[in-house]
């Protein structure tokens, strides 16, 4: 048991640290004095910064060398993440593309797709977005209804709607899961596509949330034409491709030990500013429980990393850490607002923003309830819920749903 670097890892860390120190001045300033305020300027600056990180080998650390990566392990990626955090500079802009979508293309894409898309993705020249969730398909992702129909010349026509799409407003491409055959059971008739976001018929709209800010987008597809070679992976094999993306999502989350900034020391600092609160036994008990949870997931992250280093892939139990994280952060928001009073809810403000963001985060990546089902079945081996959708062609399933609603 050792949390320290090996000599090789220490040398790697030193190289990353030195580069970041030498190039710190080139990083965009996002907070505090001299911070950029214009959204377009911020995106342009962060894309350029991602390009510099990629040139320096500090992006796509685990990507194979033939696609511009470093061919290193997850521990080196974590070292880079830690050093970027330590240097106080932003990380890459397109963490979804580099962490999840690029690796999916590497695993399932054609050679033409790899040579066309991967380098600009890694360097931030083309940002990507993930077009999976729909208004009627979130936790039950295989229930998506966005339809891709093949025409006689082999090209595709796309119709439907996606939602919760991060970065869609400035993305060049999206990786989209669509239904290509509704006459087979729902997991079997899906295909993954590469979609240019500037194609005619693509409409992107910001989706405002509780805070009033639009963190995500809705994306609409009206008769969007895609070339025959737009499929990524096998036609009607899209579910397997999607599972690859979701596996890389778990790895990406596992590598991000910072817990989205929801750290025990940050919350303790807020409470410690109020000497009276720091001696109140109820406040202390609540803080102690929140701190315990957040420390636990920090070390759960190290456990995941240990597994990754040994070549194991994190399973759905890594999702339990997300449950703990979100609920601990929710309780922290409640505690801080209880201590500070209504002032904590002033907008814009650090705490009001966090309090507004968390109720939605509870369902991000699949609702807590479905996650608990999955873990109960896959990890504990409990018998599955009886399911009414197994083996039924998707079109028939939809007809049954409509019938049930009509009563």
């Amino acid at each position, binding site marked *: *048991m*050792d*949390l*320290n*670097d090996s000599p090789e*890892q220490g040398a790697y860390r030193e190289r990353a640290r030195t580069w970041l120190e030498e190039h710190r001045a080139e990083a965009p300033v996002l907070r505090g004095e001299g911070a950029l305020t214009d959204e377009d300027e911020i995106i342009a600056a962060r894309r350029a910064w991602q390009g510099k990180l990629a040139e320096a080998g500090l992006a796509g650390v685990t990507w194979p060398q033939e696609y511009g990566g470093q061919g290193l392990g997850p*521990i080196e990626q*974590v070292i880079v993440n830690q050093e970027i955090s330590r240097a106080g500079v932003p990380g890459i802009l397109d963490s979804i593309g580099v962490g999840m979508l690029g690796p999916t293309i590497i695993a399932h894409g054609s050679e033409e797709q790899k040579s066309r898309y991967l380098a600009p993705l890694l360097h931030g020249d083309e940002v990507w977005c993930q077009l999976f969730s729909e208004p009627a398909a979130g936790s039950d992702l295989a229930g998506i209804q966005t339809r891709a129909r093949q025409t006689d010349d082999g090209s595709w026509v796309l119709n439907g709607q996606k939602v919760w799409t991060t970065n869609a407003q400035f993305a060049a491409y999206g990786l989209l899961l669509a239904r290509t055959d509704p006459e087979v059971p729902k997991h079997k008739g899906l295909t993954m596509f590469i979609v240019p976001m500037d194609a005619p018929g693509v409409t992107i709209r910001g989706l405002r949330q509780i805070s009033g800010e639009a963190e995500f987008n809705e994306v609409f597809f009206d008769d969007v034409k895609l070339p025959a070679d737009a499929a990524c992976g096998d036609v009607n094999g899209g579910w397997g491709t999607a599972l690859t993306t979701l596996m890389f999502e778990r790895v990406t989350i596992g590598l991000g030990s910072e817990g989205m900034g929801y750290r*025990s*020391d940050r919350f*303790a*600092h807020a*409470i*410690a500013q109020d000497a009276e609160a*720091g*001696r109140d*036994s109820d*406040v*202390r*008990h609540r*803080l*102690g*429980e929140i*701190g*315990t*949870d957040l*420390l*636990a*997931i*920090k*070390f*759960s992250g*190290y*456990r995941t*990393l*240990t597994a990754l*280093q*040994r070549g194991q892939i994190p399973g759905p*139990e890594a999702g*339990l850490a997300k*449950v*703990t994280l979100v609920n601990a952060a929710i309780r922290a928001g409640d505690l801080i607002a209880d201590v500070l009073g209504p002032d904590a809810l002033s907008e814009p403000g650090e705490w009001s923003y966090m309090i507004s963001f968390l109720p939605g985060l509870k369902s991000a990546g699949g609702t807590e*309830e479905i996650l*608990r*089902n999955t*873990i*109960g*079945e896959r*990890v*504990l*081996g*409990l*018998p*599955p*819920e*009886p399911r009414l959708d197994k083996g039924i062609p998707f079109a028939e399933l939809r007809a049954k749903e409509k019938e049930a609603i009509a009563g």
Partner: protein
Amino acid sequence: MNLALSDEQEFLRDAARGALARHKTVEAAREAADGSDLPDLWPTAVEAGWPGLLVSEDNGGAGLGPFDAMLVAQECGRVIAGVALLGHVPASYLLDRGGYSRIGEIGDGSLRAAFCPARPPGDVLGEWTVEPRRGHARAAAPHVSGDSVSGEVAWVPDAPGAGVFVVVGVENGEPVALAVDGARVEDATVYDRTRPLGHVSFDGAGGERLDVSAEEIAAAWYIAQALIAAESVGTVETGLEMSVQYAKERFTFGRAIGSYQAVKHTLTEVLRQSENAKSLLLYAGWAGEAKADEFPLAASAARAAAGSALDYAARATIGVHGGIGATWEHDAPYLFRRAQVSRRLLGGTHDAVDRVAGELLATAV
């Protein structure tokens, strides 16, 4: 970065599981609850070398760290075995470092020690305190003058039958640890017969003053916290395994009860809490070996998470089993009894939660 167990640690854990499997510990718990004597597992501990885990090699021990002792404690917890390590191991840590004259006998287990723990001062309660016999207010630590000690420590784990007591007292406001033979022990075992307890009083008894620092005396308290945490996690594992097995086999309304979300989510919650506690056992084990300034935080967080997990798991185990889980003949009540007493020992789980807050606040200002 590597949180995996070493080969030696895996061997230690597997050997402990094997040694304990030779005893019918859960049956013994039931028989003890009916008034029989608890079988003495100390010879098993001696044979396995557990009494000397924290005793340095120069003193004839294994020279291992808190995490190794926690692995053994976790195995004891899995089978609710009444092995007197919660008393002996923290005591042996101070005896080894403090130049105790009979350390060889401590290491080989021919002399069994019990630790009369004192809670180190915190940011709110600034004195060294010990468990009271009853009530919310903590009691003052025993008074030390030279090599004699007066006072009482209540609810001391493994006190009945111990050969030497390591008592933490206060002299001129400073903590002092003494090894005392001549203490009066009143058997105070309650509710969980697998967990012998005693009220230990000292009436000016003379002892051997141990040459240890205040930091080392505090570390003994946190070693005890880490041990009870590890032991609790072991008990949680057993409760979860029993419950999952039953949820697959018991059918209602034509399907296994484990297929119902209400049951599945309850058991997933046990798993979630258990995994969190296991992560914190690693934190405590690492800090105990390599990061002394974080050991109070790490051990307290492990205790807090493990205590909460055991509370939840013990009730869930009864609940998932339905009415049968609440009967004398079932194993679930012995996990429950263990949970009820553990929660209230060594300052109680709530004090560990408070310590987490205190440590976080102290470094946050």
